[in-house]
């Protein structure tokens, strides 16, 4: 395995690892804020994967310049820009709702938020 491919694959392994760890946290954590954090981790991982999907080693950033000959794909980066902003918007709302939900149920534990059931 060349250094280049090592670099290339390590990125996606990190990213996928983040997603999986995030999902694990989402499934197993009880504190509503902790779950929100887990989502953030997974989101970060997904964003990395997205950028990675348009990434080619040994190229330059997609800013056209006289000196630049080959670039990486700008599209995934554009998507990730959007995705990050959406992520923070969702997180802001999630936290507010989580805070209020835990106020109502008296704790931040999602297991106690089971009033709606059956």
């Amino acid at each position, binding site marked *: 395995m060349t250094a*280049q*491919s090592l670099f*290339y*694959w390590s990125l*996606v*392994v990190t990213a*996928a690892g983040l*997603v*999986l*760890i995030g*999902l*694990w946290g989402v*499934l*197993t954590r009880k504190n509503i804020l902790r779950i929100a954090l887990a989502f953030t981790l997974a989101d970060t991982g997904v964003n990395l994967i997205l950028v990675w999907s*348009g990434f*080619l*080693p040994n190229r330059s*950033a*997609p*800013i*056209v*310049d006289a000196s630049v000959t080959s*670039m*990486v*794909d*700008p*599209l995934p*980066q*554009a*998507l990730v*820009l*959007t995705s*990050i*902003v*959406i992520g923070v*918007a*969702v997180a*802001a*709302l999630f936290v*507010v*709702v989580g805070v*209020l939900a835990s*106020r109502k149920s008296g704790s931040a534990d999602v297991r106690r938020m089971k009033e709606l059931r059956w």
Partner: protein
Amino acid sequence: MIRTYVGLIIVLALGAIVVSSLSNYSVPLELGSTGHNYTQRGVDDTGSVNLVTAVVVAYRGLDTLGEVVVLFSASTAVVLILTLIPMGANPTPSSSIVSFTAGVLPGAIVLFGIYIISHGHLSPGGGFPGGAVVASAFLLIMLGSNTIPGQSRLLASIESLAGLTFGLLGFWGMMTLGQFLNNKVLPVGSPGKLLSAGIIPLISLVIGAKVASELSGVFASYRKAGGEK
């Protein structure tokens, strides 16, 4: 307890899928057709040197409009929820260091933010990070003051006006060129200049204003609802 293990099993199984699917890929050497087209035509089409901005604002402007709506909705929702629920506001008085910093820094930060916003088509940056930077300045100001911010008409007006402008720019493209949010309703100009790239700088500005005002609105209502402990 069971949940932890079930979660682990699920995640491990997902990991197996990831590994198995990654093994089908190899390091790419060429851009895909779309990416290739962007790099070839991007500057001609949009006049933006920063192709990411070209994609974000010009090619996929609709995504960005949607993204603005996402942020808009989230901030409106947060403000709405927090104003409906009185949460016993009790902002903690800020320390002198914070007060001092809050007095000095914001100006510089805002300037920096505006720079990022306005050069989005030339260098990395653009409306979103720039707007966030401006919002952080507002956050600092808010932390420095001991009063609870009132319902800011200014923020709402900026937010609303920026949104409207974005929408109307879209309709402008529709009317003149038959394509919603078409970049070329203003002249593309010469790439690399500040005033070039059609409506991209304008939209960047609009986005910056909107992001800044919305995040600030969120912070303000957080603050009203009790401040960051």
